[in-house]
């Protein structure tokens, strides 16, 4: 029997806000343990939560970018469970009235080759809700320490429908979701810092079956690659259990990305009863049209919309957009440069950015924002090359120096003598006459129709010009003279 896998993802994303979700103390990463706390974070007796509007703005914006319905009224519920990283021993979350319903994440699957775009799909979402993050436990040999700096950080939970069928789709889903959220300025989505975390629900069923099989929840998928590998591993494991005549049990499993193995954490019988109920300390929130309109105006162009536009408007190849588009800042840099360079020069612009700029930034270990080379300089360089004012080899040298100094390319070309010469047409013509005169054989061949014979004159001309003549001008001058002979 043929089986298919059914995969749904629950993605937690920390929302980047100045303060925590229910109190004024700062939110942040990398601070001394327990310095980002206050009586509310530590759940001291008598403290109360007050909602941070910026966190709500962020989730509404995310919902708008992902095509969700924004609920006209959402409310806050308490999810009750005891754990030392949870100061109140309940988490403020949203149970049955989340901020966002529906929506989808557009994904791109790998193409048949690196330079060919793959299939695009829309993975439907169930909901997105807002909740608060917990603290962090650090287990020692004989004791455990708790850092509450993270506790109370706003956290979005993005729940997909069980609509994915392969580990590759899950990988593409996470990649796209992450890019979109970064584009929206919602979060930096740094998985190493725990800003994006993913749990996967996986089941298998015979192809053609419409009911869902027994689901296994896979936890601790700490990188996008681990998500792909963990899901692939879990599908294999489930297929093997069924193939051996076994029965799958509903359970939560822990995937270890280092060893590539998983182990059971708890079975369905051990599942928590969270005793959700509406948080009496917080009022439901109404989100009206004006609020949504304000945030809609802040929503950026989505990555795949930008990709389609670049392909259509700039006619750049997929290999270039596939590097540019995932990076919002880089693609903006490209677009600014292409506009300055003028029509028909986008591909050259793209090549400079994707090949040279990224190489130099990588070698220097700098972010794009720190680049001294700005779009105006790249555009000027492209124009200089196209006009034949500098040669390709010279342009590469100019770029390297431009990266170091941030000077305009013309300045570097002049200082380094990289401008194509001579500019004096009379001198060039004399070198051409000399070259033709020195090779009557080639002249005869050319006259007889052998086009390539012209190259025999170019070497001596370039030699006379000490390599700095513009090949285009040399070619033009030679043809003009030869035609007159």
């Amino acid at each position: 029997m043929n089986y298919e896998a059914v995969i749904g993802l629950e993605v937690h994303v920390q929302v980047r806000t100045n303060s925590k979700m229910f109190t004024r103390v700062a939110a942040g990463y990398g601070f001394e343990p327990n310095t980002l706390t206050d009586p509310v974070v530590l759940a001291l007796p008598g403290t109360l939560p007050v909602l941070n509007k910026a966190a709500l703005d962020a989730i509404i914006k995310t919902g708008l970018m992902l095509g969700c319905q924004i609920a006209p009224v959402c409310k806050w519920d308490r999810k009750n469970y005891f754990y030392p990283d949870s100061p109140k021993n309940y988490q403020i979350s949203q149970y049955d009235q989340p901020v966002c319903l529906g929506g989808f994440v557009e994904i791109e699957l790998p193409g048949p080759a690196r330079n060919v775009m793959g299939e695009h799909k829309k993975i439907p979402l169930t909901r997105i809700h807002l909740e608060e993050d917990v603290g962090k436990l650090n287990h020692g040999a004989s004791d455990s320490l708790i850092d509450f700096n993270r506790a109370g950080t706003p956290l979005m939970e993005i729940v997909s429908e069980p609509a994915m069928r392969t580990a590759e789709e899950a990988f593409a889903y996470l990649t796209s979701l992450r890019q979109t959220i970064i584009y929206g300025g919602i979060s930096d989505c740094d998985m190493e810092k725990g800003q994006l975390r993913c749990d996967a629900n996986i089941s298998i069923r015979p192809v053609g079956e419409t009911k869902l099989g027994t689901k296994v929840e896979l936890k601790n998928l700490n990188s996008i690659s681990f998500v792909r590998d963990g899901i692939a591993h879990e599908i294999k494991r489930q297929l093997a259990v069924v193939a051996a005549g076994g029965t799958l049990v509903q359970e939560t499993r822990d995937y270890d990305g280092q060893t590539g193995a998983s182990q059971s954490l708890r079975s369905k019988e051990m599942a928590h009863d969270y005793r959700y109920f509406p948080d009496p300390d917080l009022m439901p929130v109404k989100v009206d049209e004006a609020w949504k309109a304000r945030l809609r105006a802040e929503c950026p162009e989505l990555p795949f919309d930008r990709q389609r536009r670049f392909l259509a408007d700039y006619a750049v190849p997929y290999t270039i957009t596939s590097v540019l588009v995932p990076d919002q800042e880089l693609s903006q840099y490209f677009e600014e440069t292409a506009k300055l360079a003028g029509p028909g020069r986008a591909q050259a612009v793209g090549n400079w950015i994707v090949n040279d700029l990224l190489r130099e930034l990588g070698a220097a270990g700098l972010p794009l924002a720190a680049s001294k080379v700005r779009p105006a300089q790249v555009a000027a360089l492209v124009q200089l090359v196209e006009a034949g004012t500098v040669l390709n080899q010279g342009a590469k040298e100019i770029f390297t120096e431009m990266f170091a100094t941030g000077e305009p390319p013309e300045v570097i070309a002049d200082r380094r003598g990289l401008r194509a010469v001579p500019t004096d047409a009379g001198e060039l013509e004399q070198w051409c006459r000399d070259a033709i005169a020195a090779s009557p054989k080639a002249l005869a061949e050319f006259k007889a129709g052998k086009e390539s014979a012209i190259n025999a004159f170019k070497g001596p001309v370039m030699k006379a010009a000490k390599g700095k003549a513009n090949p285009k001008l040399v070619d033009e001058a030679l043809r003009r003279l030869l035609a007159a002979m």
Partner: protein
Amino acid sequence: MSVELHYQTLVELATLLDTGRLSSVELTAAIIARTKAVDARVRAFNSFDEADALAQAAASDARRAAGQGRGPLEGIPVGFKDVISVAGQPLTASSKMLANFVSPYDATVTTRLKNAGAVCWGRLNLDEFAMGSSTENSAFQPTRNPWDLTRVPGGSSGGSAAALAAGEAVVTLGSDTGGSIRQPAALCGVVGLKPTYGLVSRYGLIAFASSLDQIGPFARTVEDAAILLGALAGHDERDSTSVKVELPDYRAGLGRRQAPWRLGIPKEYFGAGLDPEVAAAVEKAIAYYRGMGCEIKEVSLPHTEYGVGVYYIIATAECSSNLARYDGIRYGHRAQDAHDAVDIYFKSRAEGFGAEVKRRIILGTYVLSSGYYDAYYLRAQKVRTLIRQDFLNAYQEVDALLTPTSPTPAFKAGEKADPLAMYLCDVYTIGVNLAGLPALSVPCGFSSGGLPIGLQLIGQPFREAQLLAIAHAYEQAHDWHQKHPSL
């Protein structure tokens, strides 16, 4: 002047302070002396810091001398129920769980009282985590009724009521979740007001049942209560359930001629279980209002009988979650022999909480459990809406309601061993919390045994000014509030 300093009203003392005939240090020292003289018998206080109180009083005197007095509460010692946070003072909830906890921050009401110049005086006993009606559930000591030391002061704010009745404070703060201000006020012969839900910030009040809890004043007179309420009330951005409303001058409102009022008598509040002497005293009060020209009308609150049941579902559900934070991890009692996190939870909570608190946590955990939520919690919330609607319907016809506060005067310590019998003490007060309404208890007589009896006035949302005026009119014509227990 025949009345001892410790039994004078806030208004009288404020005049003495204003006219320089008394300093805050003298007043505070008198209150301290009185407390030292009687509290071994009354046991209203969990703790107090004599030196700190005198230092605050000296600071107040200095402000006044510099012409920077802050109003009628300047220099007045205010007692705090030990669930309201004062930075640097113990905050115990009368529980072993918090026996050694000192709060690092001020409740919003504390900040407001400090801004009004008040002296934050000692910590007043209560039923553990405000769960009870007799202050016998305190983990530290039972408080006794100053009128009869063999009897309870009511609860849960028993310490706040008893301290006032015994002259150990000028005014005090309590909290009321199902009657915890009004019932002890009635049993101790003082005025106690539960404000409309949302009028006073809960920030810094140890939560029992968040949707029902309100902080409110205890005072010797309605006017004193009005002054204290004025200092406590107002929107607080730290409490999302506090409401932005225009605040009247409660004290100034008392003098305005507003009578006659239309007053409702809910028939469900005069049925079986009501002590005949309490009934007679309340009837006399009703007769007084009729006599002053008020329209007295019988009304019906048909869902009253469900009040106690609904209350013990909603309050316990909320408390089961609110008290989860007391886990022995970050602060509070931690069992000595626990060997891992789960063990810390089980042992610390087993040792730290008393029987009534555990009973309510278990009840609340049960009613929120998967499969029971709809039948209990959700249904209780629906009935709660009906109970509120009963009141709002009645207010179509009347301005306020008159009822007994407590079915009986103070009962004997140890008399109500059955929790259900204790729960029925709140039968007349619980509906008000479920409906979020303001209500106050004002003394309306004494039993043949010399025990105080309270009249409850229930008002419309955010109409505390009217409620106080109605109570004030009665108080002006009676002298119950001028009687004091002999200690």
